[in-house]
């Protein structure tokens, strides 16, 4: 414990050097921009900026890259709340209630709670990282495909919680997501499915073009139906900051979201969207008024936003202590460390303590910087909502086009985006929700990959999911989740038979 504190002080000493402070800020700033601009997410940006970090010292490079990652997370929530376009995959969940709050004139509180929740989660995550890094990293190694498959089953069950309307329609969307997720090369044998000979479909329909289409383009189309010349926000802006009631409502969601996100982030493959979705589902489940979710419940913003930030810090644990990247962004960070001659692993802390502790210290500082960057801008962002939509939407559309094209430099992806924009428009007209579709679309292929690989690893035996302790726990959790949704149904049935 004392060791950790002295290490932390050492880290602060390094981070407070002007050069490192500057790059921390630069990273946060660039990251926020990237997060706000939909499309090119943190991994794309990191890859492009990687060569620039060659000239920096290892600690400085990692400080800047970590700042970019965080900044992107913070920035992603801004567009989700303001214009219903997720800055990156995990922000999809924030759109659900955040955008509704914006329409009611409560964009300020939404942005504020998102920023503060993220800050609390990020900082708590860093504290967790400091003290829990080595033991937790070893725990992460015990996870392999059977465990991931079991976790994803839990995630898929949560799909129904993401819809606020008809459960049947949520399931239909989920099924559609699973179906469209099969397009592409299959994850095990690499055989092509539904690609119709197109090279572009080999990796499947792109997630980002679909998200931009379903959320962004369809929103533009719906808004264009309005004949009045107005901004997104018709009512008066109520206030810029969360009021006391908001704070009270958000406290527990933030705390729960932080914990959920942190632990999901440690698990390799546990990514930000799973954390955010789990947090949303949990909040809806424990809430006294679940029907409010989807219409602007602040808990639906506070929980997921905290979860996706703390999952980032969680995902640093396997990287820094074992050298295992748990997702694409961590892999890039790993690459950048290796380019600088630093091999992360158990030896990192002893051989390069300056890197480990300066990264941790910079996370604290980075979180503070991001809070300082984001809060004052809230007033500015909210003014944006008052701009007449006729002037605003061409820029939104341009954003979407740039973001989608930046992924693979192909017009094909733009075509996918527009197609799903039209589909999304129709979906809204008939009250089908996009969120369950997106979750199933992401989780379906992941599940197939891990499920089939588990069966290969177990020589064909299905008991593999129940024989291994960790996956058994998650399978039981999944069964419990299913049963718990049956209970209210059974109660109602019983009631129907009462005289």
């Amino acid at each position, binding site marked *: 414990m004392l060791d950790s504190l002295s290490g932390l002080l050492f880290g602060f000493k390094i981070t407070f050097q002007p050069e490192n402070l500057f790059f921390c800020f630069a990273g946060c700033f660039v990251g926020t921009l990237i997060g706000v601009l939909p499309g090119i997410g943190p*991994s*794309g940006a*990191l*890859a*492009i900026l*990687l*060569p620039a970090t*060659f000239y920096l010292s290892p600690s400085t490079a990692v400080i800047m890259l970590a700042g970019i990652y965080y900044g992107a997370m913070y920035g992603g929530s801004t567009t989700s709340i303001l214009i219903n376009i997720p800055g990156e995959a995990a922000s999809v969940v924030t759109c659900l209630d955040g955008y509704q709050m914006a329409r009611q004139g409560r964009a300020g509180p939404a942005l504020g709670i998102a920023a503060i929740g993220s800050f609390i989660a990020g900082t708590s995550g860093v504290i967790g990282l400091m003290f829990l890094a080595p033991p937790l990293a070893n725990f992460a*190694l*015990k*996870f*392999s*495909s059977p465990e991931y498959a079991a976790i994803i089953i839990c995630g898929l069950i949560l799909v129904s919680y993401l819809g606020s309307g008809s459960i049947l329609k949520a399931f239909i969307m989920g099924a559609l997501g699973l179906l469209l997720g099969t397009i592409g*090369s299959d*994850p*095990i*044998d*690499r055989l*092509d499915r539904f690609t119709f*000979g197109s*090279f*572009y479909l*080999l*990796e499947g329909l792109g997630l980002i073009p679909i998200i931009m289409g379903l959320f962004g383009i369809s929103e533009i189309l719906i808004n264009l139906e309005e004949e009045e010349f107005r901004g997104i926000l018709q009512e008066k802006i109520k206030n810029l900051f969360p009021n006391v009631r908001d704070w009270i409502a958000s406290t527990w969601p933030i705390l729960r979201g932080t914990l959920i996100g942190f632990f999901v982030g440690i698990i*390799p493959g546990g990514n930000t969207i799973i954390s955010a979705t789990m947090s949303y589902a949990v909040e809806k489940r424990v809430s006294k008024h679940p029907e409010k979710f989807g219409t602007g419940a602040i808990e639906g913003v506070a929980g997921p936003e905290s979860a996706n930030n703390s999952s980032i810090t969680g995902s640093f644990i396997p990287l820094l202590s*074992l*050298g*295992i*990247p748990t997702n*694409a962004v961590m*892999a*890039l960070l*790993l*690459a950048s460390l*290796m*380019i*600088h*001659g630093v*091999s*992360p*692993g*158990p*030896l990192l802390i002893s051989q390069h303590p300056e890197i480990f502790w300066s990264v941790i210290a910079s996370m604290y500082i980075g979180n503070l910087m991001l809070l300082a960057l984001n809060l004052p801008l809230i007033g500015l962002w909210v003014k944006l909502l008052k701009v007449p939509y006729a002037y605003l939407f061409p820029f939104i559309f341009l954003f979407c086009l740039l973001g989608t094209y930046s992924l*693979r*430099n*192909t017009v094909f992806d733009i075509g996918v985006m527009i197609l799903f924009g039209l589909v999304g428009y129709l979906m809204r007209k008939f009250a089908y929700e996009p969120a369950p579709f997106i979750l199933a679309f992401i989780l379906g292929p992941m599940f197939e*990959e891990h499920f089939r*690989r588990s069966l*290969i*690893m177990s*020589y064909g035996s299905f008991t593999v999911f129940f024989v291994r302790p960790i996956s058994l726990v998650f399978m039981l959790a999944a069964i419990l989740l299913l049963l718990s949704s049956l209970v209210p149904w059974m109660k109602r049935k019983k009631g129907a038979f009462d005289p």
Partner: protein
Amino acid sequence: MKRFFSKWTAVGVALVIGATLPAHLWGQEKFPKETITILFGWGTGGTADLLLRGLADVMQKDLKVPVVVENKPGGGGVLSWGLLQSAKADGYTIVYVSNSVVLETYKTKGKIDYKNFEPILMLNSAPMAITVHVESPWKTIGEFIEYARANPGKVRVGNSGMGAIFHIFALSVEKKAGVKFTHVPFKAGSECGTALLGKHIEATAPNPGDMSASLATGKLRLLATSGDKRDAFFPDVPTFKESGIDLAMEIWRGVAAPKGTPVERISILEKAFMRAMEQPRSQELLKKLMLANNSLPTAEFRKVYYGEAEKAIPILMALEK
């Protein structure tokens, strides 16, 4: 007015023709004079991607034109090769190739054909290895093979894609040593390393460079490498040949241009890449990415490139049965 117009028009036209005449007279334009695009068929952040970006950075200053790497992930390289097949053969678009381009020729039944490309140079080649956990009971490749022979199908060997080069390598080991493994496909070499660290599989087939993070933990042991000579980064690890198994395979990485690209332009590109590789910064990058400095110029690379088909395709064909 009309006279004025026609006189000055004549002067203008003469100036324009005069200005462009030298270019026409020059015949061949100077190459390169605009952006060179290197297509890369996977996502960002992997070893090859980082190497290409580092080289592109150096080449920009050398050739005085932008040199950019464009990621076109799709089908394990197939999208990038498909795009190159329809690109203009003017030397401004080139693509990263590896053994996979030959494997994909067979798998796509010729939709992608390695014969549609002109090899420019080989950047690097690396041997593969059978790697196990240090806590496993096998200290030599001989012990490992013995166990595998006594327990057919029980040994799980990870690779980074069915039908890709590391899988082919594992299949070759099976054939030459007379054993049967269970092949477990992952999405990347690093995933194989992680699974091995967690003892979820018995061994892995990818080259050590792809699993560097897991190797750095010191918990993995290489049993044998697949080159003709010992791997410079692992001088204590014997080759398969030394251990009595007649196997020699390497993964090679290079760049190629569309068929029909003028020979002079290929030569210019080849020399530019070679110069970039010799820069101290590139040498350092190679070391850090655990890549040997064994690039090959066009002539030698052509032999490797066109010779791959005879080696790999029979194994792929046997796999289909």
